[in-house]
């Protein structure tokens, strides 16, 4: 990370303000006016539109291996995705992914 201390605090401050404005928006400023349905529709997909695109390069081309695809990281990612999806619980996905990843690291360390 190459930001200055001031830049990091700027990011934190703007994220704090921006996040509050988003959360407070309708409750505070806009009031009871209904939102156009197409806006609601787009908003519904924001997390699934941002997170997968952010995570895909990290899974396929991890920095730790110099950008080379890595079987262990792919398996750990699959485990997290499948378990979190089946259980509908974030925590179980994280546990499964971390378990596969660290078990794999341990095994490859022994070989």
């Amino acid at each position, binding site marked *: *990370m190459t930001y200055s201390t001031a830049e990091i605090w700027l990011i934190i401050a703007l994220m704090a303000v921006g996040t509050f404005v988003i959360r407070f928006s309708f409750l505070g400023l806009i009031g009871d006016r209904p939102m156009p349905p197409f806006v609601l529709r787009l908003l519904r997909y*924001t997390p699934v539109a941002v997170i997968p695109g952010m995570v895909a390069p990290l899974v396929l081309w991890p920095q730790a291996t110099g950008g080379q695809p890595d079987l262990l990281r792919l398996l750990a990612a699959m485990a997290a995705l499948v378990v979190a*999806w089946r259980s509908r619980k974030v925590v179980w996905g994280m546990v499964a992914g971390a378990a596969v990843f660290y078990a794999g690291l341990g095994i490859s360390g022994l070989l």
Partner: protein
Amino acid sequence: MSTATIKSAYKQGISDGLPFVFMVAPFAVLFGVVAVEAGLSLAQTMGFTVLVIAGASQFAALQLMVENAAIGFVLLAALAVNLRMAMYSAALVPYLGAAPLWQRVVVGYLNFDQTYMMSVAKYEDAPDMSVPDRVRYFLGVATPIAPLWGCTTLIGALIGKAIPDALAIDFILPIAFLSMVAPMLKSMAHVAAALVSVVVALALAGLPSGAGLLIAAVCAMVTGAGVEVWIERRVA
């Protein structure tokens, strides 16, 4: 119904919020660990977690900061993750719109996934609830969650300083993101949006950090909304 026989709205909120403790605590510990590993100071990590108090977007900002993305891209991508909360805000208006401004400010600050979901479910279940009771219930749900979020982040940050690099903590972030997003894939439209996001982001990976992601996110949102409309028309 006499008030003696039902629990106060605030206490009810607390007991409904308690189960989320198990979900929030590990997540916050993890944020503390990765934030410190990424190079944030203890004060910055805590400032982040207390002021922003939105897990997925905190992780998103951190990831882009590790990639040294331009500040504008960091903000746009991380805030985009939080845009869903505008929807929560709108959904709370019919129930809490009549509360005093300062109470709506507090509710706004604490308006995250768990408080929103529990509260709207409760308000729908109990249409007779008064506005002050609704506010009390909302704050009750937040009571076990919000302070814990800060405290467990602090624990994570302190642990993070002690973790050796050999633990390859770098890959924990992708695992956390996948675990967050998988339960959100509730419909064909969500799956389609996620797939478009992945394909476009990979195709544009050569652009400056964050730029390809934003284009991918816009394409994915339009895809999600489009598929939803298409499915509705077919059913209708």
